[in-house]
């Protein structure tokens, strides 16, 4: 039998990050993680203590490395930095951490605040000299996250438009 592939600690965190980003915190089971990380269940518990322990390790990696790298790539690139950041799924783990765990887990809340501080002041357009229209200043972290939420939404379904007039008629 072929020896199962083992991943480095960094790869384990990156793969777990992908799992949590796709499935959310509650929606990601230990079964999902054991399969994706190719770890024995016992090794996963021994290494991280619990699902929360793994999530905290992932979030630390995200705040310490993944997010700063994404911000540098966005700000240094030729496109609008906010546009760049909100197009991919770079900010989704931050949204998940804030919504699912930010109000119950103070360590998650602290890491989310550190991430928000990094996002605060990301310039709206790239400051590179080729872009003469660069604006001074940046958008707040919450505005950037709001833009990401908006971009994630599917287009509205026809026939489900909310109508104010019907409500008023009912009153």
């Amino acid at each position: 039998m072929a020896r199962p592939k083992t991943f480095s600690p960094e790869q384990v965190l990156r793969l777990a990050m992908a799992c949590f980003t796709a499935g959310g915190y509650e929606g990601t089971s230990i079964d999902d993680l054991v399969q994706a990380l190719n770890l024995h269940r016992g090794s996963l518990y021994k290494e991280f203590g619990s699902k929360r322990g793994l999530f905290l390790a992932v979030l630390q990696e995200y705040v310490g490395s993944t997010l700063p790298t994404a911000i540098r790539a966005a700000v240094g690139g030729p496109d609008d930095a906010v546009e760049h950041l909100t197009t991919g799924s770079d900010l989704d783990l931050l949204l998940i951490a804030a919504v699912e765990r930010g109000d119950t887990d103070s360590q998650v809340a602290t890491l989310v605040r550190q991430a928000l501080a990094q996002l605060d002041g990301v310039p709206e357009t790239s400051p590179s000299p080729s872009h003469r229209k660069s604006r001074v200043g940046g958008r707040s972290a919450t505005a950037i996250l709001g833009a990401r939420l908006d971009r994630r939404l599917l287009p509205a379904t026809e026939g489900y438009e909310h109508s104010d007039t019907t409500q008023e008629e009912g009153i």
Partner: protein
Amino acid sequence: MAQISVEGRDLVVEVEGMDKLWSLKSRLTIPLAHVRGATSDPGIVDEGQGLKLAGARIPGVIVAGTFRQDGERVFWDVHDKSKAVVIELQDDTYARLVVQVDDPRSTVELVEQARAQS
């Protein structure tokens, strides 16, 4: 089924009803310093328990007692796998406990918060 509570600096696991008989344990007291975390994990039951050292195992009905798996001692008390919670330990008799609780979500939060504050 087990009741999990925090008493001072200890995590207390009270084995309930007839499970005391099957698992040959009625109460486990573990210093919080030995507790590394808690996780709701229904899937762990399907992975098997390894070698039974003391207790009872009727597949699909009950797993209760002390088992040895991959060189580790694990305490089990589970009938309904959907309510299984894994409590990971260090420097203790057991490597981990796998116990069925009434409300996995609140038990996990209780253990994780007690750990963070200890």
